[in-house]
């Protein structure tokens, strides 16, 4: 379903080159939950950002459903991010001016077309699923860190995407809250959604169907 082959990425800041990926490769099957584990600086977040099209590789190939998506035009890239890919970040990145429900609906607020009643119902169902039923009208500032991350997960779920990318989704949460978020992600994997998660926590990685280790920008 998603295939990255020999991805190379080097960051350049003021003439200084910092190699991040030196030929990383990965294949994710439909409904597979893959955890990418590695130390800080191993290149796992850069790799995840390239997989999710947030970052362009210097070389290598990224294929999704058999199509090369390495150099898609901006409009096609936006459509892919909008419809097929979903992201959960270490920080929840909720818009503070929108309620929890509106934040969940955010992927559908990209145009002047109004959000349908069906999508609203789906948003409420997603909030219920992450245990936030009844808190849809609250602003992010009135929710705990764990609840905010759940809203972010609900936002990823509402699109019914094919692949969910999660970058240290529990990194900013306490142990108990982190566990409940992991339960959610594991459930999603079991529901047929492909999940690619970056973590440095081996225990959380053990919940995935497959764990991949990264070191120095390549798969260990």
């Amino acid at each position, binding site marked *: 379903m998603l295939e990255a082959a020999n991805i190379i990425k080097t960051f350049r800041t003021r003439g200084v080159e910092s190699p991040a990926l030196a030929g990383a490769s990965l294949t994710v099957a439909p409904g597979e939950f893959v955890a990418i584990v590695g130390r800080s600086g191993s290149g796992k977040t*850069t790799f995840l950002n390239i997989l999710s099209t947030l970052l362009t590789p210097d070389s290598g190939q990224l294929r999704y459903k058999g199509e090369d998506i390495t150099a898609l035009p901006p409009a096609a890239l*936006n459509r892919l*991010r909008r419809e097929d890919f979903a992201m959960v970040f*270490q920080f929840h990145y909720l818009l503070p001016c929108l309620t929890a429900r509106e934040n969940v609906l955010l*992927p559908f607020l990209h145009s002047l*077309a109004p959000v349908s009643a069906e999508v609203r119902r789906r948003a409420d169902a997603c909030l219920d699923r992450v245990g936030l039923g009844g808190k849809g009208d609250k602003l992010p500032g009135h929710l705990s860190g764990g609840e905010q991350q759940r809203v972010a997960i609900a936002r990823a779920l509402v699109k019914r995407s094919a692949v969910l990318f999660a970058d240290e989704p529990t990194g900013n949460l306490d142990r108990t809250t982190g566990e409940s978020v992991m339960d959610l992600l594991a459930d999603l994997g079991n529901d047929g959604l492909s999940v690619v998660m970056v973590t440095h926590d081996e225990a959380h990685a053990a919940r995935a169907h497959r764990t991949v280790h990264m070191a120095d920008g390549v798969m260990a």
Partner: protein
Amino acid sequence: MNILVIPLRNLRMKWARSLLLLLVFTLGVASIVALNLVSGVVGESLERKLVAYGANILVMPRTEKLTVSYGGFSMGDMLLGASDLDEARTMERIAAIHHGSRVSAIAPKLVSMARVDGTAVGVIGVRWEREMAIKGYWAVDGEFPAREDGVLAGSRAAASLGLVPGDTLSLGSRTAVVTGVLRPTGGDDDSVLFTGMDFAQAAFGRPGRADYVEVAALCAGCPIEEIVDQIAEALPGAEVQALQSVVRQRMYSVDFVQRLILSVSLIILLIACAMVGATMLSSVNERIREIGLLRSLGFSRPGVFAIFCFEAVVLGAAAGCLGYVAGHALSLRVIGALDITEGATLAFSAAGLALTCLLIVAVSVLSAFFPAWKASSVEPSEALISL
């Protein structure tokens, strides 16, 4: 619910910032509106007062000049065509032109020659009230003629003819009485005698006729050429000329006031725009992660651009409406306080309100253009990965 909910909620959430920005922008718009409304009224009032210093359009009979000579003998210049105008018809038609409201005074003249004690002198028949409307600088020793046979003598003419108030003299077939002597004006008025139009027409046997008509038109609202064209159209047998030097002099004074106010308005507008631009730019920097998130969710660049522009549209529309109403109210107070605008009125214009709103929205969006463009150029990777 659609994309517009994001800028609207953002404005509401940051209400203190939004309110402050709105206040500054509204004050700017109110100042500009008030300055422009007041300048319009002051300009027109100023021009009305300047009318007292002379006419700016001359209406004469259309004639052709022919220099005749035959057999080596020159008979001089001969005029072909109508030699005078029908006074009542001419005045009526001038008053009825499309820009009739811009015509401030119509002063007909009948020019004749007379001999007083053997000395030739020009006699000008005038309508006193109309003449005095365009000769506000006249000052008289004695009195302005109140009687039909009254004569006002120019200073040089009075000196050469030895006339003083109370003297009687023969003009054409009638006897007239000098009621006053004009103080020196430095112009043609000093060398002639002025009488009432009816008296001159009767004395010189030309009832209902006028040789030319001076017109004082207000040029601030429309170009003088338009008024000239309309008078020419209304009077096919007449030649109509704009006295360009008078027009230019008068418009210079009016334009100076209006240019000064326009400059001040532009400075205020620039400051307001800079405020909006700077605030939007700081908002973009502050919300860089939000923008990164939106881009990662598949929002297009135009979509992000629209979010920031719409905030500017809302601010601009609100500031435009509030500013126009406040500016109108302010200008009413200012006009009431100014002596120069005595009697001036200012009607509330819905079209003015709509135009101001549109203009301010455009200016506001223009101010937010760079910040919005900057926001739309943010790559999600740059905004989110940097953390």
